[in-house]
């Protein structure tokens, strides 16, 4: 078992490094990132200020602008491993603290969206499989197809329009109590809910055809109890596999959902920093999103072992 975890963690770590290297390269393509622009934005905050030659040299020294790209990356990496992700151009605060202050908001939103989508998708998937071709089956499958096709930012706008303005029920934006969480979580979770529901339905149908279900019936067990004791756990295995894939879309989604609902998470920080060309923050955000992405993937792998005893980790 430990061999498996070690292997998966190694992959996760590699992914984080690959992402950080790729992002560092991409960010180097930003034209015009010279010592002058850094001084203007970091130290001065007034773009019409032209720094003296001494200042330019000093800045180039601080940010190692002189040497080649890969060396700059290594400097950055070395600092990053010591927890120093550089300082934000705009706020002048250390990148690490800017991100860690916003990390809980994104994690909270991602978890809420995942739970919301699973809590809706799993039972609905089971019901539409149990009562195949019934009204609920058609209805839920049709709505799933719609939600998959629906852009989440449009869904967000529509929810704002309907819920908080006309019905004045839910707060429209901003971070705060539980009621602030509802609309963003629905917007973010909708896509994942649709995919999971469709998958759950086909997976349950698959399991219902297997022999051990007939055995269970032969023991005199009613359908409901068969569903929860025998079908659910088996049907979840393929769903968990796809959940890993969905995480990528979920994290991508947070960027958009946080912008619409002014949710102070890493996604919003990333968009603001891209607009403001705040390079250290962009780099920091992407690395943290990659870490969250790999961590969640690791959790999905671990849950395999917990769900499916047939998997012999030692063998991998």
């Amino acid at each position, binding site marked *: 078992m430990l061999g498996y975890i070690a292997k998966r963690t190694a992959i996760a770590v590699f992914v984080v490094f690959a992402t950080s290297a790729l992002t560092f390269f991409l960010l180097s393509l930003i034209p*015009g990132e010279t010592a002058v622009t850094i001084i203007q934005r970091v130290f001065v905050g007034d773009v019409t200020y032209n720094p003296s030659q001494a200042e330019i040299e000093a800045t180039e020294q601080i940010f190692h602008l002189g040497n080649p790209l890969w060396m700059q990356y290594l400097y950055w990496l070395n600092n990053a491993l010591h927890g120093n992700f550089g300082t934000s151009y705009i706020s*002048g605060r250390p990148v690490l603290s800017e991100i860690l202050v916003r990390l809980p908001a994104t994690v909270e939103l991602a978890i809420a969206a995942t739970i919301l989508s699973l809590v809706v998708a799993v039972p609905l998937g089971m019901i539409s499989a149990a009562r195949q071709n019934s009204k609920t089956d058609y209805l839920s499958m049709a709505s799933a197809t719609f939600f998959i096709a629906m852009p989440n930012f449009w869904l967000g706008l529509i929810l704002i329009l309907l819920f908080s303005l006309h019905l004045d029920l839910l707060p429209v934006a901003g*971070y705060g109590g539980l009621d602030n969480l509802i609309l963003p979580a629905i917007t973010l979770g909708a896509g994942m809910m649709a995919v999971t529901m469709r998958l759950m339905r086909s997976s349950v149908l698959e399991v219902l055809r297997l022999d051990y279900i007939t055995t269970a019936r032969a023991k005199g067990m009613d359908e409901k109890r068969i569903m929860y004791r025998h079908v659910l756990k088996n049907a979840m295995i393929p769903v968990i596999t796809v959940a890993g894939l969905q995480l990528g879309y979920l994290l991508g989604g947070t960027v958009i959902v946080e912008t619409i609902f002014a949710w102070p998470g890493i996604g919003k920080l990333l968009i603001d920093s891209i607009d403001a060309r705040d390079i250290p923050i962009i780099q920091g955000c992407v690395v943290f999103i990659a870490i969250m992405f790999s961590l969640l993937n690791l959790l999905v792998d671990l849950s395999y072992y917990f769900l499916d005893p047939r998997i012999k980790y030692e063998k991998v």
Partner: protein
Amino acid sequence: MITRRKVAIIAICLVLLSSIMAGCIEKETQEPATTPLMPEITPAAKEAKKTLVVGEMWSIRGVDPAKRGSFVKEKAMIVDTLVEANPDFTLRPGLAESWEQISDVQWKFHLRKGVKFHDGTELTADTVKWSIERALKINPPVKAVTMIKSIEVVDKNTLLFTTEEPYAAFPASLEYPNLGIVSPTSGTDDKGIIVKPIGTGPFKFESFDVATGTLYLLRNDDYWGKKPKLEKVIIKEIPDPASRAMSVEKGEVDFTCDVPYGDIERLKTTPGLKVELHPTARVYQLTFGNLSGTPYSDERVRKAISYAIDREVISERTLHGCAEPAIGPVIPTIAWANKGLKGYSYDPEKARDLLAEAGWRDVDGDGVLEKGGEEFSVTLYTYPQRPGLQPMAEAIQAMLKDVGIKVEVRVMDWSAIKEHMTNKDMKLSAYALAMVPDPDYYLRRTYHSEGSYNLWGYSNPEMDSLLEEGLKTFDPDKRQEIYDRVQEIALDEVPLIHVAYYKVAVVMRDHVKGFVFNPIAHDYMLNPEMYIGKSND
């Protein structure tokens, strides 16, 4: 054999570990005592009717007056400056009771007596000297604005300032928000950035929650000026315009500004809300890549472009009243604005004539003028931070197309524009007219051949001498004459085109009373006289 139970525990620990780790790291890096992450604005706090909740448009990225002067002074009202300014940009005494000019480069300032900092320590000449010198060190542009060479403490309540060169606008430059006077006892982080400012202003810093961008302020009971009626002010960062509008509408905040244009008419008619539109010292200006070797070197082309722009419809319809058509370079409400100027009316016919006069013909009949084989086809750059810029750019694009100039609009970050823009292109931006309430600040930077804003190489010897003279003459009437002439030439030669003055849309619950708009502000400025009354009186 590792059983299921053990694996489950490992998985759960992994999750807990990462969140705890994140939690505790977060605690370390946040020195200021922050209220819990999710500060619930309990209805009780609001019911006390002594608390004003403000929706701030920019994300609050720090509370150090030297770096975030306009926020800490104008909105948080934590610090005061030696000199203050009236809505018509004339000066009035601030922490300095009075000041007199000793020589061309020396000024003596007498401090108000008995003024205390929020922590009870006394305001003395030494603390003022420390505070201003700190601002000069931390924020280089402050030196460019004030030209301070040295500061000497004459006695407990008197300071002597020496400027690099004769600078008539020096007293006005001390109104610059980044010069807010702050006590050495303010709490700072390891890099010397102030995180707990101790000022002399009407409100004291209570705490700042970085995550939700919320600043908590308490009334300063022994404020030297009129004691404010409000007990508590909460400033919440709501960077998204649509969210600001909805928050004030639903009562989550009492006061905010710059809501989306579309919502202005609607909010005016919404019960329980007041909407005020005020021109402020910021102008939308259309500048050119370079005035030499481009179509814009010909003055008639510049005038034609100015005539081709319908400032009326842009201000009224496109920006929904959030702008006022510009006549001269500065807003008419400013004391030293040249009231006699007659701006450029919307006259596309005249524009086409002027362009024809300047030799631009539509040779190939594709609706775009050519001259010397070159098409008049340029790119108009602007940036996303101010919501009005993009729609205005697209409106100007259509108007110039109407007179035969083909324009492509590109929206990108300010520093990126510098890289992509060529001499032939144009840029639409919103410039602050009076960070310092003195004509010199904007006019010299924009119209003097070496002015730091003047990137398009405009140089007119008469303009240069006038601006240099203005700097040195201390007689108010004579200065007024000089700057009237400067504004006249500026309007006549039109090296850059002023489209409209920026109007701030202030939206507040109708129980908010006592608000006085002061255009000197960067965007808007709260004032100590504000209070919460009954909603219908």
